[in-house]
C-alpha cells in the first residue's frame, strides 16, 4: 500500500501540474478536494482519466461512490488496489 500511495501522489502532482508541491505535502488521509488540497471538479475528471490510463481502473465520475473513492489518497489507493487489472 505504501508504494502505491507514493505512486498515486506523484500521479496527482504530474497530472494536475501542481507546481511547488511534493508528495510529502499531500496527506494520506486528508481531503483532496475543496477544503483539503483544493482540487476542483475538472481535476476530478483529469485524475479519473489518468488513473484509467495508469491502472486500467474506471471510476464512474457521476456516482456517489466516486465521491468516496476520490476523497483522499487513501480511498483512491484502496479502490485501485481492489479493482486494478
Amino acid at each position: 500500500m505504501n508504494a502505491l500511495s507514493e505512486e498515486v501522489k506523484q500521479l496527482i502532482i504530474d497530472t494536475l501540474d501542481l507546481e511547488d508541491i511534493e508528495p510529502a505535502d499531500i496527506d494520506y488521509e486528508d481531503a483532496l478536494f475543496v477544503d483539503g488540497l483544493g482540487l476542483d471538479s475538472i481535476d476530478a475528471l483529469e485524475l479519473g482519466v489518468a488513473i484509467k490510463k495508469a491502472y486500467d481502473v474506471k471510476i464512474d465520475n457521476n456516482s456517489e461512490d466516486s465521491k468516496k473513492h476520490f476523497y483522499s489518497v487513501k480511498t483512491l489507493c484502496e479502490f485501485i488496489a481492489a479493482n486494478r487489472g
Partner: protein
Amino acid sequence: MKFTIKKCVAWGGGLTTDQDWQEFAQKEKELSLEQELPALKQMPAMQRRRLSPFAKLSLHCALSAAEDCLATVPSVFASRHGDLQKTSKLISDVAAKEVLSPTQFGLSVHNAVGGLFSIYTGNKAPLSAISAGEDTFFVAILDAVSKMNYNAYPQILLVYTEAQVPEIYAQYVAQEEYSMSCALLIEPVQSALASECEEDKAVFELTLSNKEQGDKPAGDDENPHMQALDFLHFYYSGVEQAEVVSKRHKWQFKRTTC
C-alpha cells in the same frame, strides 16, 4: 473611427518593457525568437498551474493594461490562430484514439483565456473572442471601438495574442510569426470641448479602405509582418501616420492631439 489609448502593454519577441518597445520602434532593438514568459506571481499557484504559454502572455498583458478596472471592464480577446499548440495536441490524441484530457479540452476553445481572465478578476462584463485571419489585430480594434461607442462604455480592453504555430502547421503560415501579446485599454475621445481635452493627449484614428492597384503586398500575398507589430512600431515611434496593407484590406492609422 477615433479613440484614445489609456494604456498599452506588450510582451513578446524578446521584448517585455515599454523601454524595449520604444527601442524596437527606434530600430535600436530587434525581435528575437526568445521565449521568456511572464511569471504572473500575483495569481494563486492553483490557478496559475493551468496556464499555457499562450494564456500567460495574454493574462500578463490584460492584467497590466486594465489594472485599474479589472473587475468591470468589457473586453475583446483576439487571436488569429488561438492556442493552437493545445488544439493540435488534442487532435493528435483523437487521431491516436487516446482519451482526451478534460482540462486541455476545456481550455482549448477560442474564448478560454477570456474565461480565465473573467474567473480570476471576477469580471462579469461582456466579453467576446474573435479571429479574422491576418487582419485580426485591426479588426479587433474595430470591434472593440464599435462596441464601446454603441454601448457608451467608458473604456474597453482589447487583448491580442499569438503563439508560434506548431511545426506541423508552419508551412501554412506566410507571416513572420512571433509569440506575443498586446493589450490596449481603449477609451472614447471624450468631447470636442477643448476644456475637457487633456493637453497633448493622443487621439488615434483607424481607417479601413479598399486596396488599390500598386499597393504592396500585391495580389494574394500577405503582409510579411504581424499587424500587431506594425501597430506597436507606429504607437511607440510617435510618427503621425502609418499605412498597413494586408491581403484584402488597406488600413490607415493616424495620430493627432485633441
